[in-house]
């Protein structure tokens, strides 16, 4: 979607890649993905891989922390830190 918010792109990616039976809009930007949606390490890893494939972002060992992937808002911050233009265009 043109000019789609980065957060919406991330939610779409998450639902698609994890094959979740829910609508992306059901995920709040600040929902705790682990506590509220039950994501485990395998699924967090899938998000990391998704960031690599979709946004071209690679995280090193020292750059990763679970806290950075707890919420869509946090993940978006990671993406913007690596690519300030992410989500700013289609």
């Amino acid at each position, binding site marked *: 979607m043109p000019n789609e918010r980065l957060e919406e792109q991330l939610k779409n990616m998450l639902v698609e*890649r*994890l*094959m979740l039976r829910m609508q992306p809009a059901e995920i709040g930007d600040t929902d705790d993905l682990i506590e509220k949606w039950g994501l*485990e*390490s395998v699924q967090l890893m899938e998000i990391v891989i998704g960031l690599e494939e979709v946004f071209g972002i690679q*995280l090193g*060992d020292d750059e*990763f922390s*679970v806290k950075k992937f707890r919420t869509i808002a946090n993940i978006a911050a990671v993406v913007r830190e690596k690519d300030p233009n992410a989500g700013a265009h289609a």
Partner: protein
Amino acid sequence: MPAPMPETSGFFPATDGTPLYGVYHSPGSRASCPHDASDGRSVVIAPPLFEERKSAYGALAQLARGLSEAGCGVLRFDYRGSGESGGEGGQRRWKDLAADLDAACAAARKLSDCEQVTLIGTRLGATLVLTEANRLKPERVVAIAPMLKGATEVRHWRLRSKMRSELGGAAAPASERATEGVLDLDGFPVHSGFFDDLQKIDLFSEPAPAGCPTLLVQISHRENAAPDSERLTSALGRQANLACIKALPFWERVEDADTGEMQRRIVEFVRAARSGEQGTGSE
């Protein structure tokens, strides 16, 4: 429901005598003559390692039973230092996996009385099968979600280990707790040299057609081919085909995964050998 096919478990020797554990599934009633080399088929399943091995175990056992019902003799086995095989995981190198696959092929030929072996690998096992196919000269190859670049996989393993450590509240990521060249990967001892070996593997840099019909199986959220899957299929040559299955990766799931479609496509592909067809594993 068909009668259960006999399954026999036991040990066979690796080339250096290390006892390797295996489960052999006898050919089922569909084989017109189970021990007739002209009709029967022999299959070796090369598993993943570490957590992926645990998660994939049930699905691969089901696959073996499906192939057995289809008339194939199927050997599942554990690499040295994993499962119930002898040897130390912390001493294992990539060349040891290759040697163990070699031994498994020899054992499968003996058990099934078939000279030709079909190799089925999953994840690291798929990468192993693809890199060793030219040497082992199997009749057919099935590669389920091979690890494409070892360096990427090692990086992902380290990241996942760090995730698990943080989620579990551990003091330090497991992979950092090294003792005398042996790393701890989520409780699995890994020789530091094994990571070095793996990082040298790149299925794209030295693509080598297996020299036989090859089925690459992509299992992911995608219904269509991922760019890397297409690229690898092309690199593997004209005898390679790609099956795209939209499903959660069974090697990552604690609970049972739906592998019915995968099983159906693989059995169809392997059975095509009997009729002399190339087989595409297509719907």
